[in-house]
């Protein structure tokens, strides 16, 4: 079960013609797909697209009613390959993933799909994870669209426009026999807004129709000579058809006055921030009534040469607003205008930043420079623009820079991965540092304080593969970490199979927390929960043994730090050849709490005996060294000051968010830290036996304590 439930929100997907939809853009996109009559959807989770997968998963009943087949794909390549259903049949289908990482994985299938072309509309929803808040390398999906010739839609951040472009996108795909990509940026995915809905459409041609009347056409398969023909088709048929459709349906928009000395060309996704920046310059109002001609490219590939020419023809200069690099659109614009002999000067990355978010602030600086150079009168009497620079230069604010500590993300309270890395850190203290290959997932937080473990990360599921150069026996063994998500995404073959086959002597730690946790707790093959629509419960241990691994150790309670340490030490020192595989399994605490808490609360309310645990620190035993924190980093383990003039340093303290996972105690025991930690077992609704035992023990203890208090001297201050 995913971290966030959309069970309530998916009811909005049933809205019909004329009703107003309000909600997150991700949900609007799903609604757009249903309004377009898709037959199948798939994809792989990852921010900012995780919620789309969660919405689809929670909407399975509605999807079922409409005859839509929804798959949680094994990875993005699987999802892309799924689109092949639209090659021979008039079936509309859509898949979604985080990009560019997902597009990297998918590109083999995408290239094949784009070469042969499609009959039914095929769409990829691209969650463009670029700029602030991104968790991946900063690249553009634009390059993929160009290299495989897939159309790239970049709608204005407005629910109505997005939904409209989904519907039009399918038509475009069919009109030009080309798969399309619909790009939505991080903030747009999570944007709250509204649009007027239409009825959902049941596909006329169904998957059953296709299965019962299979078709094949050798010309659609990527094999010479058809492959050469595909390229010619792309150039001479599909591209012109697409251009024709885009123009006829006015997918790109000309806004503002028709005439003007200058104009701005922008990616659709930049629109809202562009309007705000113009507003600050007094060139637009808040409702988008702009005084500067705008050409909004809701389709950023292909570039419609004739539209660019029309826009630039009578202007002195145009500015291209294109986020990210390289500046493909600016280059294309340059070619188009040069060929057409149009003299308008081209600005873009000369006044705007080459890389990074095109925030309003960044755009504002670029616009000022552009108008200063090309049309200073447009700036008029220059209303004061927002400017935080003077205040940021104040000494009080400057001083703050060294005071405000960074707050990097980290493992959650009670995370079962924490003890794995605590054990690894301790083993490194005993056996020396080792090369550690990290992977993508929550466990990647091991590279940050307090663990500081992990040298590289090469992509999802590639933790084991990225240690493969070190397969040579002799030196210290390498350690590779991989999560269960990455394992099923591709790590089983690319990592474990590869290590078995090449007799890699290294250590491979597979972190099994029962979910794809980093992306929001979706189920995967080895999840232990019952899932009505998927087959879960396929153990990782069986898979690695099946692929030929022989040294396999399964730790089924990662919180047993001593055991974790022992197994890691054994793996690093055993004489046995081949990969040493450690499967460390404990349930993701975030998911576990969500699962267990309501059950416990109900049991307690119903009068049942329930024991809950949490940890604490004896503040007079703690000496304030904080070694325990350097082996933990748990959010619930913090520090506090004591009102004791003899103590200099704050002591460790555990707050009420503790879930009693046991890591603190286990670590302090295994690392021989200190005896400050205690675990409290809180008995709710104790039985008469509990109460009797408690009373009897406390009576004895009370006598002993009173005896000692009589025999010692102490001081009270008042």
């Amino acid at each position, binding site marked *: 079960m995913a971290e966030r439930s959309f069970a309530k929100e998916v009811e909005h997907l049933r809205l019909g013609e004329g009703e107003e939809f309000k909600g997150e853009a991700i949900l609007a996109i799903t609604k757009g797909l249903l309004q377009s009559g898709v037959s199948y959807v798939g994809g792989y989770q990852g*921010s900012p697209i995780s919620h789309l997968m969660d919405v689809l998963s929670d909407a399975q009943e509605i999807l079922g009613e409409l005859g839509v087949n929804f798959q949680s794909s094994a990875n993005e390549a699987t999802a892309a390959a799924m689109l092949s259903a639209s090659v021979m049949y008039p079936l509309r289908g859509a898949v979604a993933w985080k990009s560019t990482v997902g597009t990297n994985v998918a590109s083999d299938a995408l290239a094949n799909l784009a070469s042969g072309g499609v009959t039914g509309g095929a769409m990829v929803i691209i969650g463009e*994870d670029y700029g602030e808040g991104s968790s991946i390398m900063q690249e553009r999906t634009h390059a993929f669209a160009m290299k495989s010739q897939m159309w790239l839609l970049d709608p204005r951040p407005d629910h109505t426009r997005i939904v409209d472009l989904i519907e039009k996108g399918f038509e475009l795909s069919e009109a030009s026999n080309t798969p399309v990509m619909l790009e939505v940026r991080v*903030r747009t995915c*999570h944007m709250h807004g509204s649009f007027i809905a239409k009825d959902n459409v049941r596909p006329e041609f169904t998957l059953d129709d296709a299965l019962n009347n299979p078709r094949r056409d050798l010309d659609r398969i990527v094999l010479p000579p058809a492959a050469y023909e595909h390229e010619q088709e792309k150039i001479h048929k599909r591209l012109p058809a697409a251009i024709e459709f885009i123009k006829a349906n006015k997918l790109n928009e000309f806004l503002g006055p028709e005439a003007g000395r200058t104009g701005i060309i922008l990616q659709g996704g930049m629109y*809202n*921030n562009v*309007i*705000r920046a113009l507003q600050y310059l*007094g060139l*637009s*109002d808040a409702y*988008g009534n702009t005084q500067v001609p705008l050409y909004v490219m809701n389709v950023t590939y292909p570039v419609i040469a004739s539209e660019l020419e029309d826009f630039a023809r009578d202007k002195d200069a145009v500015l291209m607003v294109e986020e990210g690099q390289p500046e493909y659109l600016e280059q294309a614009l340059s070619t188009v205008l040069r060929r057409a002999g149009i003299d308008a000067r081209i600005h873009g990355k000369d006044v705007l930043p080459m890389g990074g*978010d095109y925030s309003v*602030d960044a755009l*504002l600086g670029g616009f000022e420079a552009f108008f200063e150079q090309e049309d200073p009168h447009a700036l*008029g009497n220059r209303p004061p*623009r*927002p400017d*935080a620079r003077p*205040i940021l230069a104040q000494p009080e*604010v400057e*001083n*703050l*820079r060294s005071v405000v500590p960074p707050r990097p993300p*980290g493992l*959650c309270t009670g995370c079962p991965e924490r003890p794995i890395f605590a054990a690894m850190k301790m083993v490194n203290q005993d056996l020396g540092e080792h090369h550690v290959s990290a992977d993508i997932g929550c466990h990647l937080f091991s590279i940050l304080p307090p663990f500081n473990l992990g040298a590289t990360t090469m992509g999802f599921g590639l933790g084991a593969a990225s240690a493969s150069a070190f397969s040579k026996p002799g030196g210290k063994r390498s350690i590779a970490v991989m999560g269960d998500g990455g394992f099923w995404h591709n790590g089983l073959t690319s990592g474990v199979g590869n290590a078995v086959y090449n007799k890699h002597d290294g250590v491979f730690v597979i972190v099994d927390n029962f979910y794809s946790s980093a992306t929001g707790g979706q189920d995967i093959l080895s999840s232990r929960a019952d899932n009505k629509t998927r087959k879960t419960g396929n153990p990782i241990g069986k898979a690695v043994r099946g692929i030929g691994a022989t040294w396999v150790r399964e730790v089924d309670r990662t919180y047993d730090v001593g055991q974790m340490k022992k197994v890691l030490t054994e793996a690093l020192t055993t004489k046995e050849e081949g990969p040493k595989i450690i499967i460390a399994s404990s349930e993701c605490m975030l998911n576990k709490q969500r699962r267990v808490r309501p059950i416990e609360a109900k049991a307690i309310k119903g009068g049942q005996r329930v024991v809950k645990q*949490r940890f604490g620190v*004896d503040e*007079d*035993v703690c*000496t304030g060294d904080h070694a325990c924190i*350097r082996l933990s980093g748990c*959010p619930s383990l*913090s520090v*506090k000051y*004591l009102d*004791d*003039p003899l*103590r200099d340093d704050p002591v460790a303290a555990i707050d009420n968010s503790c879930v009693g996972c046991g890591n603190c105690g286990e670590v302090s025991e*295994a690392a*021989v830290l*200190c*005896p400050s930690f*205690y*675990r*409290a*077992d*809180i*008995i709710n*609704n*104790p039985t008469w036996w*509990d109460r009797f035992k408690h009373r009897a*023990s406390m009576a004895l*203890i009370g006598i*002993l304590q009173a005896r000692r208090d009589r025999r*010692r*001297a*102490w*001081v009270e201050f*008042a």
Partner: protein
Amino acid sequence: MRDETVKLRLEAAGEATERPISIAIVAMGGQGGGVLTGWIVQLAENAGWAAQSTSVPGVAQRTGATIYYVEMMQPRDGRRPVLAQMPTPGDVDVVLASEFVEAGRSILRGIVTPDRTTLIASSHRTFAISEKSAPGEGIADNGAIDEAVGVTAEHSIIFDMNALAVANGSVISSAMFGALAASDRLPFGREAYHDVIKAGGKGVAASIQAFDAAFDRARSGPAQPVPEDPAGPVIAPSALAPGAQPQDDGHRLPEARPRGRGALDVAALFHRIDTWLPAQAQPLARAGLAKVVDFQDPAYGSEYLDEVEAINAVDLAAGGTSHGFELTAQAAKYIANAMAYDDVVRVADLKTRSARHGRIGEEIGLRGGQLFATTEYMHPRLEEVAGLLPARLADWLGRHPRLSGWLDRRISKGRRVRTYSPGWFIALYVMGGMRWLRRSSLRHRQETAHRRDWLALATELAPENYELGVEVIKCQRLIKGYSDTHARGQSKFARVTAEIRQIAMRDDAAQWARRLRETGIKDGEGGDLDGLIRTIRSFD
């Protein structure tokens, strides 16, 4: 601003050129920033406004710093406004910070500016990992944030919204929503806010209660004025508000009341402090005396005062009057810490004290009808046990490595001690009662030797360089913790004091000594003691 004759092409047509109201919510992942954002959007939509929220999801949601952004504006002539997707520095009306350092971070982002921003921030702290994991003291200075708020925010509402929310059985988002309502920056009445919460359907009563409490608190200040003069130092350790640093301004000394066996002897010792020690050293000496008596017995307290008085004599001779008797005061503090060392007897004693069960019950928020028991995570090694043996027996054992190896394998393992079960309690109780063994033990001999050498160094250096003497006294802070941590502390202490001896003749020796000590505390965790020592030696 330049003088412009050219007129703006766009007519400033009243409302049309107005900007939307912009609200940024800066929070930590998992703090409920999303709920608050949803409420604010709902509030605007209920009033017929257009509202748009955006957020940056992904890894930041896992406890990292994150930001949510809301814009709202009235539609005009059926046209919806075009709303921006991220805050623009210098143009944010309200910043809601759910933690105090996050308020500081928002200032650094430039979204708090004196011409328009109302900053609504909770003053509580959730420490960042770098603050927590620093050995010793690493907490960010709240004062610097206060100062920056003072120059950046047009208006600010700051109080502990987390504590207020918890006290009302709710979470921080309710309290922040209440503070937002009280700020009057949005043109919506209090009832409109209530309606939004009520429509949420979950924990409504508690949310409304926290909302109202925060509303009133924001409007009228704290319900009970904070006492101007906090009570003086007390031994019973109790937590302060996070970030607040205890102060030892000893101008109003609390009365010491010795209790139990030997109370009269202890009272005499307090009298000795009053009679013989300078006023500046008295508060720490009183606390120190209480600590060592608590650790051992009144006789040990007398020994403590002997040591402090000896240092005081040195202090007087070295002209301590003009230094406010800093040497004696610091000695009173650190000698007490050195004498009350952490051994198994002390740990067992603390774990079996009568007040402990009740204190834990309070800490874990025990409710009526619940019972609890505790388990201690202990890992004694032979060193700790041998430390308690009579010194000569321990020496003998040390000369027999095979026997001690055999014993260590029997003793050194993790033990889960069920404190309040009769068997384990008696075991701990007996161990906690072994104070009579202490003075003849190996550990005591080691600690006494350490103390003698340390104080001898301070005594030697103070007459020549008063500040350096004080710095040497403060080096005791390097020793803390148990087992390996303790051994590392001793090694740091040895390296730092050896180096201090080397540089004692320099004029700036005290400054270097301070740097050596501070680096030593952080050695291996961001501090490089050996590197600093090499640097110092390279000067010659």
